[in-house]
């Protein structure tokens, strides 16, 4: 009886289940080449102004790794009209927050303000692009700050170096072989002139995408955008020509050490195609199948049933030019690293040989639909996605349509992609071991 009441209630509640939301936006180019995306959301009196520059760690000179991230720090040091040390003060005293982040592929800056400060946000971002002040003094301070950032996030943290070890082995030619934070000696060697040249080359409107999202009026916003960004001169065309990797055809193995750990870890890492490809999305689904949730294959087998691992899973590191697919496990008790790998391999072979069950397939679809709804839950998140889909994928509307790609992926494709990329002769096996420096 109880049960029937429940389902009645649920029927009442959810008879009108709507389709997932659509993110409306408008996009256009300024005459200097800057791309502009506007999104209106009046649910809260908030506005986001953000700029994504298509420059990241992979655009650095090989002997100047860490430059892109370092430069991100420098661009908070002040502009012609914003004095050194004033940037953060302006933001917080206007009730806003701001930050920036750098990946191998792009650099992203943003401010979040109460909606009546829209013009302020545009002014700040245009100041940053038009005439930042880059001086030796700022370089010297930020050099120390970045080193502390590395100590904090990498050197003093357990399990923080595995990506570094994986990448330096998986990539031989492409700049993905380095880390975003870079080598400290490279930063020490970097001169002021090099920073100025970096700015001149990459921080130009034709390499930038501006997003304004929130409680805004399009006509007013467009005028302001034109006022603040329109007069900024176009820069030279940027051509990107990164070296191509040769396929991995023989198994590789390596060891990496971490003084902050006691329990080792094992990783199997594969080089996979660009995140723009359909195959990369199929690999996302395979990761989810293997390790998302307590009923996922690797968790259930290695952690729950066999008690061989403390943690086990799959990560698909999606990047613009290539991806890195990493399977990993931390042994429980006395389990040997090699045994974890062979258990994982067994599951990979199953995916490569048989189709996953209809039920598991439906589960994946439900998960991706859930992720899709949640990915657009905050206007900050929407702004970031709009910029990312334009800059990285060249198709802003993927914010609405990417879910259709996932929906169209078949069980057969999952099997075939696993067969194509996840073979022992295409991978690096990395033993991640405890050791004092």
């Amino acid at each position, binding site marked *: 009886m109880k049960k029937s009441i429940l389902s009645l209630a649920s029927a009442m509640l959810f008879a009108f289940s709507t389709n997932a939301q659509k993110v409306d936006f408008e996009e256009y180019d300024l005459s200097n080449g800057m791309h502009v995306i506007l999104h209106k959301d009046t649910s809260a009196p908030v506005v986001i102004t953000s700029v994504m520059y298509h420059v990241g760690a992979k655009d650095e000179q090989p002997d100047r790794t860490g430059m892109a991230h370092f430069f991100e720090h420098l661009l908070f040091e002040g502009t012609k009209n914003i004095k050194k040390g004033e940037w953060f003060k302006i933001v917080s005293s206007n009730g806003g927050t701001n930050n920036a982040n750098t990946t191998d592929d792009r650099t992203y800056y943003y401010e979040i303000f109460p909606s009546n400060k829209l013009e302020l946000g545009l002014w700040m971002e245009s100041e940053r692009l038009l005439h930042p002040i880059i001086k030796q003094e700022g370089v010297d301070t930020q*050099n120390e700050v970045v080193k502390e950032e590395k100590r904090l996030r990498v050197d003093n943290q357990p399990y923080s170096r595995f990506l570094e070890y994986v990448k330096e082995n998986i990539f031989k030619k492409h700049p993905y072989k380095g880390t975003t934070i870079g080598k400290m000696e490279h930063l020490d060697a970097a001169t002021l002139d090099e920073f100025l040249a970096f700015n001149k080359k990459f921080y130009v409107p034709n390499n930038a995408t501006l997003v304004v999202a929130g409680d805004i009026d399009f006509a007013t916003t467009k005028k302001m955008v034109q006022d603040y960004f*329109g007069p900024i001169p176009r820069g030279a065309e940027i051509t990107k020509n990164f070296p191509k990797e040769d396929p991995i055809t023989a198994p590789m193995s390596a060891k990496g050490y971490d003084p902050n750990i006691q*329990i080792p870890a094992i990783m199997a890492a594969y080089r996979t195609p660009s995140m723009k490809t359909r195959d990369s999305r199929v690999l996302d689904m395979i990761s989810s199948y293997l390790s998302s949730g307590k009923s996922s294959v690797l968790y259930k087998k290695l952690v729950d049933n066999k008690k061989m691992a403390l943690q086990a899973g799959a990560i698909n590191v999606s990047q613009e030019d290539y991806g890195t697919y990493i399977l990993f496990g931390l042994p429980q008790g006395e389990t040997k690293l090699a045994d974890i790998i062979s258990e994982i391999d067994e599951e990979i072979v199953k995916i490569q040989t048989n189709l996953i069950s209809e039920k598991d397939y439906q589960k994946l679809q439900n998960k991706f639909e859930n992720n899709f709804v949640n990915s657009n839950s905050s206007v900050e998140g929407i702004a970031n996605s709009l910029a990312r889909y334009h800059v990285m994928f060249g198709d802003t509307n993927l914010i609405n349509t990417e879910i259709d790609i996932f929906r169209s992926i078949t069980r057969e494709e999952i099997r075939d992609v696993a067969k194509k990329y996840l073979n022992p002769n295409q991978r690096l096996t990395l033993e991640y071991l405890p050791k004092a420096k």
Partner: protein
Amino acid sequence: MKTKIASLIALFVISISVNAQIDRSKMPEPGPDPVVKLGKPETFKLKNGLQVIMVENNKLPRASASLTIDNKPYFEGEIAGVSGMMGSLLGRGTANITKDEFNEKVDFLGASVSFFSSGAFASSLKKYFPEILELMADGVKNSEFTKEEFDKEVQITLDGIKSNEKSVTSAARRVEDVLTYGKNHPFGEYTSKESVEKITLQDVKNNYNTYYRPNNAYLVIEGDIDIKATKKLVKSLFSGWKKGNIPAYTMPATTNPKTAEINFVNMDNAVQSEIAIINNIDLTLGDKDYYAALMANNILGGGGTARLFMNLREDKGYTYGSYSRLSQSRHAGTFRATASVRNMVTDSSVVELQKEINKIRYQKVSAEELENSKEEYIGSFVMNVQKPRTVANFALNIARYNLPKDFYANYIKNIKAVTLEDVQNAAIKYFRGDKARIVVTGKGIEVLKNLEKTDYVIKYFDKYGNPTEKPEMTMPIPDGMTAETVVNKYLQAIGGKDKVMAVKTTMMVANATVQGTPVVMTMKAAAPNKTSQVVSVMGNTMSKAVFNGENGYQEARGQKMNLPAEQLAKAKDGNALFKDLGYTSGKLLRIEPLEGKNAIVLQYKDTEVFYDMASGLKVKEVETSKTPDGKEVKTPTVFSDYKAVNGILFPHGIGVKMGPISLDLKVSDLKVNEGVSDADFE
């Protein structure tokens, strides 16, 4: 037609903007303040005590449920970690469903359900929410605890503890809590290997039956829901959750030290020191000076524009970020000012942190700082107030803290009312730089020497917060390293033994200032073992010391004196050109950090010689001698600024300290195999 007009207007607007240039030298003025609309939640209470807060928001087709069991904290004692373990074991099978079925169902719906010792959380798409809420309710009411799952969880917890054993940050947080609250306090106790091994399955069941009860619980449901239907659903799912009898517990009082002290925790693998200046406070949300305290903390260390950040990061570059935090609590609040800094600047960072804490206590903040801080809070309030999660949190706080219903309606007004005096009073009351524990977790060998120079008493603790002894201040000497390998590495570093052996004479002219007077020193040396030193001021020879390999004398102000037997013997024993050649018969003492680098220390007779471990270069010598009355005197000589002459590196900066006098010699001329004759040693 309508669109045409619109685009015409747009064109017009753009054409104006082309003509009228904006003045970008001025910061743009804000538009009119946005209107703040406080959302209103729906609330009701079940007979078992569970209070339900619902917020409807139809922006996305999803919903979530968040359960908070707001019991007063209690002490777990020798089975510390039992509640955490109970929380992890919740939802692994109930009277109605097996664990695997439960997990499969949740995952299949692409949803998530999680449990913890003080509540639970569930979220899903709108269409699956009733099913998901039912699963959550089932786990809350009917969880079963099996031996198998319990054993597994014990193992995972133990491995988890092990995996964090070397983590500097987790050791720091643990010890900070132990020292701040005390080991016998619910906030000070921690889960250890020993305590986990003591926990039994029955303990876990008891914990669930005693504390996981609706008496003090709140359920917040938010999202694309129908209020009426949801109320009905919650009633049917949670009415059966039985009220319990939660034991009374009196929390021990916390105390601050009488005067500020350093509590040091040694971690050999630390590359940064974790610094936390902590004192206990009595501050609860809604207190009269709550907003003043918020402003004071925000100005001191609230974020990237606060004083700590501007000083320690933007000005000094000591850290990636330095912050302070004022944790209000109905039970035991704290103030903390923190920074993770590189080893070398640990002492300076402690000094700067304390300086900032004292400054905000003894001097009023500026009107501008206060104004900016108020705007920061008001802006954040304005931006968040309409978000469904905020609406729910506000309602939850009003209920938990028993606040007036208009508490948040008056938020902006109350923030604006804070005065400069209020801020200072709050700073004096809550930031006790004078009675703080300065907990430093770091690498003793690299940071203690300088920390000892601060005025604070230093107490030592192990990484579990137990009092201990000061750590050993040396590092083990690597296998295979001997006096000979060290000296050879040095010779290699300065240019190679061949080149060194080809040197017959050296002549060096160095300048220094002694008590304001410029002094020139000329030093000559020749093989096999001849030396001379002449000190002159403005062209006049002030003193002279000569040794010809057999005999020697000193001359000062016209007084000539033969070298005493002791010094003569020492001179005879040395090598005038490269003393280090003789050091191969010395012995290695220890490794000592020196200016952020490690030096290997070699003892040769009464001299300790420091060679940089990395570069191999000699960085320092310390000679110990005895005064006539038997006191030991140490004379350190520091070498720096190595430059090549004839392919050999010579230090061009030499610092000597003799008692209160320090001499900073800068070498202005250095010649090899020229400018020296036998006459110089007569």
